[in-house]
């Protein structure tokens, strides 16, 4: 089967990203250590029921891992002067961004799956509805990886700056989502704010599938994630195209 040139290019870009960027220290620090520390800081030693907060933790892990590769790639390539050559290959901004999204999503998917399986085995937590969990994994990793590439758009060729900026954006999205206080317990204004965070819908999906305590409903959750994916994707294409020559 011959894939259209656009997708061939995107897959080749994704392969390159996997090979080069998965092992970069910022991915490890902001993608893996960060959610782990947050988990330790908020959940450990407080006698909270693990099953109640576990869906939130899983969602947070998925959010952090999936969105940690994307911000790194474009600034890194601009700094290392490989970006111009990349643009000259049979690729478009769109296929480069898709390749970056695929690499980020795969990273988030793989690590979150390991955490899911490990915790299911160790703590014998409820599996929940496997189809909804799978759909949440797929759509969640793609939407958050797309957020990651959107965060790479600032016209900067300094990876450290972009990583810091992207952490500044991602942290509030966690605090306002229903991770630390379940959505059902939030009051009017706080709940309204929570609906702004894309993470809220993923937490709600996991809560619904695993604990049966979803508030919004899986169809709306999935639709919201899809909408965020489209929004982030359009933003990433727009800003990366606009800033394409900055830092070359």
């Amino acid at each position, binding site marked *: 089967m011959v894939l259209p*040139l656009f997708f061939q*290019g995107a897959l080749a870009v994704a392969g390159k990203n996997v090979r*080069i960027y998965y092992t970069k220290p910022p991915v490890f620090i902001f993608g893996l250590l960060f959610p782990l520390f947050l988990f330790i800081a908020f959940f450990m030693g407080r006698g909270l029921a693990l099953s109640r907060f576990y869906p939130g933790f899983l969602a947070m892990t998925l959010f952090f891992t999936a969105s940690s590769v994307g911000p790194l790639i474009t600034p890194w390539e601009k700094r*290392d002067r*490989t970006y111009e*050559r990349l643009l000259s*290959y*049979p*690729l478009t901004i769109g296929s480069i961004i898709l390749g970056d999204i695929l690499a980020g999503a795969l990273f988030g998917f793989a690590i979150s799956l390991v955490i899911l399986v490990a915790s299911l085995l160790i703590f014998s937590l409820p599996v929940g509805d496997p189809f909804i969990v799978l759909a949440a994994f797929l759509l969640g990793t793609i939407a958050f990886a797309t957020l990651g590439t959107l965060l790479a758009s600032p016209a900067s060729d300094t990876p450290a700056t972009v990583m810091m900026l992207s952490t500044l954006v991602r942290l509030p999205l966690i605090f306002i989502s229903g991770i630390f206080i379940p959505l059902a317990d939030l009051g009017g204004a706080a709940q309204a704010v929570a609906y702004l965070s894309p993470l809220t819908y993923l937490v709600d999906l996991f809560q619904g599938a695993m604990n049966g305590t979803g508030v919004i409903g899986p169809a709306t959750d999935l639709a919201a994630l899809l909408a965020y994916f489209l929004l982030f994707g359009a933003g990433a294409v727009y800003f990366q195209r606009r800033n394409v020559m900055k830092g070359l």
Partner: protein
Amino acid sequence: MPAIEAHHLTRRFGSITAVDDLTLTVEEGEIFGFLGPNGAGKTTTIRLLTGVLTPDTGTIRIAGIDLRTDPLPAKRCMGIIPENSAVYSDLTAIQNLTLAGRLYGLPAADRNARARSLLADLGLADRADEKVRTFSKGMKQRVSIGCAIIHEPAVLFLDEPTSGLDVQSRRLVTGMIRRMHDQGSTVFLTTHNIDEANTLCTRIGIINRGILAATDRPEILKQTFDTTQSIEISFAREIDPSVFSHPNVLRIDQRGDKLRIVTDDPDRAVKYLAAWADREGVRIASLNTLGPSLEEAFLAITGES
């Protein structure tokens, strides 16, 4: 069918017009040299022609394919060595080349063999599996060339491919350009080395402040834009140029241990110099008459300074 066709290209950056209404056709099989002072718009032109930048106005066809409407097929026909562009230092030489092959759509089965044989041609066979991070500048440039030609492109673009390289690496690069040309590729290159352009290129374009000022074969450019003739003479000992005075000696420039004498009549000037040396008992170490030079033509066209 022309290899490169550009019509009325214009590209502005803020108030600067980097490329101004540039129309250019490069036929299949040419080696086209693109010259111009710093900031003239050479790199911008190459970026436009290779689809890295989009023009504000104008159209581009590569091997007959419209770059705006069919960018991906058009880009598959090209190989590009950007100015100051690097290869992936976290990958090995062979991984860089196979990645380029994959991006250019080479079948997986061919990529590895092609990459190995190309690296051998580039003198990097024994370093093929090392990370590029450890390579010297010249070695990186060779990997960069490998990435640009792994798919045997119909049109090859090179932006200052030999700048900063030693003699051996430069020879290797120009040899590679000639080889690609012999195999049927069209070549478009920029350089600040006018001698190199003179010996390598079948046709030359000169751009100045975004405007294409002249395009022609090197010899024609010389004859059209440099009407002066000169003699280059070197004596066995240092001679003060001010001792020479003759109506046909228009100007004398000191060039290292040589004197470049600009003249309107080489015959009379040579006879005068020889007679002077004989009279003074000074040995002539070398004597050459020089025709019009591309460098003088370049200066005449790009002017001012």
